[in-house]
């Protein structure tokens, strides 16, 4: 045994070091371990540690048949109900499917304004036609299959049935409307 790492120890010093080396440690204390761990576990932890523990802590799963059946039922409702709600009532989709673009023409070189009115606009003159160089007024309108009555409204006051329509129908007030049939595609 040496002191200062390189000098030989005297007999007394060697005895002292040997005597100290035999100094007993306290006996193991399981109760101390319990208290220390409780103190550690009871102290507030940083939020990220608490979050990680909450998210990743393994949890025992207990189940029975009734509980499983109820869970399956709830999951089925949760999955199927939104699909049914999203579909809504079954109805023809006139906005996006099976629509035909119909071109309307009316020759009126002296007119200042020509519009369409008919079933498709609740008989409001809301579909304006644009004038071409040759005096023809033109409009294109997407329409679902069906039969439509319509007229041209010239300069906002004169209602004229399309002279080139394939058929006409009396309006009950002594005038007639052009009739357009839009077939299914």
């Amino acid at each position, binding site marked *: 045994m040496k002191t200062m790492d390189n000098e030989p120890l005297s007999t007394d010093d060697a005895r*002292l070091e040997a005597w*100290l080396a*035999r100094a007993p440690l306290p006996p193991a204390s399981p109760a101390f371990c319990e208290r*220390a761990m409780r103190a550690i576990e009871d102290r507030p932890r940083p939020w990220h540690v608490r979050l990680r*523990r909450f998210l990743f802590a393994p949890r025992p799963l207990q189940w029975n048949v009734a509980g499983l059946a109820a869970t399956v039922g709830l999951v089925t409702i949760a999955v199927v109900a939104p699909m049914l709600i999203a579909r809504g009532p079954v109805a023809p989709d006139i906005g996006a499917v099976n629509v035909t673009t119909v071109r309307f023409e009316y020759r009126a070189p002296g007119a200042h304004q020509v519009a369409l009115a008919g079933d498709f606009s609740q008989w409001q003159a809301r579909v304006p036609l644009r004038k071409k160089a040759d005096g023809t007024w033109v409009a294109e309108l997407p329409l679902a299959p069906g039969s439509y009555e319509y007229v041209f409204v010239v300069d906002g006051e004169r209602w004229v049935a399309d002279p080139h329509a394939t058929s006409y129908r009396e309006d009950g007030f002594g005038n007639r409307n052009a009739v357009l049939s839009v077939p299914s595609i």
Partner: protein
Amino acid sequence: MSDDIQRQEEDWIARCRKGETQYFRFLVERYERMVRGVIRRLIAAEHDVDELAQQSFVSAYEKLAQFNGSCQFSTWLCQIALNKARDAMRARRHRESDLDVGELELMSDGDVPQAQIETQQEKQRRDRQLQAALGALKPEDREVIVLKYLQEYDYDCVSGMLGCTVQAAKVRSLRARERLKDILQRMGVKL
């Protein structure tokens, strides 16, 4: 410490850092005797030992992220225990010497033969003698005795824990040992 034990400790520490607090229990179980022993010797008293030891472990757990592995975990933990003991002694304005050396003579070995097999009673007597002698030392002498001769750390570790140079640790160790030897002789303890 073997490589397996070292790796095992590193694994426990890594798991604790991830929030798996239960792995700290293994470290507490492994080192509770050391920590309680160091604190008991450092404060040279029986009271508050477990409380300070518990504070040391809680502090070690809280600072685990700062443990960088440059020394062994046990060394780092011992440093924490040393700091706790110092704080406690400062807080209670511990007297430099708890015992009158004259009182210590009552603890002499008398005619006990040294060669005989040590009984539990003799272990207890030697423990009390050491505890009394440490109590008669100045706290700074006590620290170096505990770290160098009871915990048997090398001078690099001791100097690091005491915050002094290796040479200063050696000198302090030598002087503290002489003072302890003197106290033990006056107590009539046969080494």
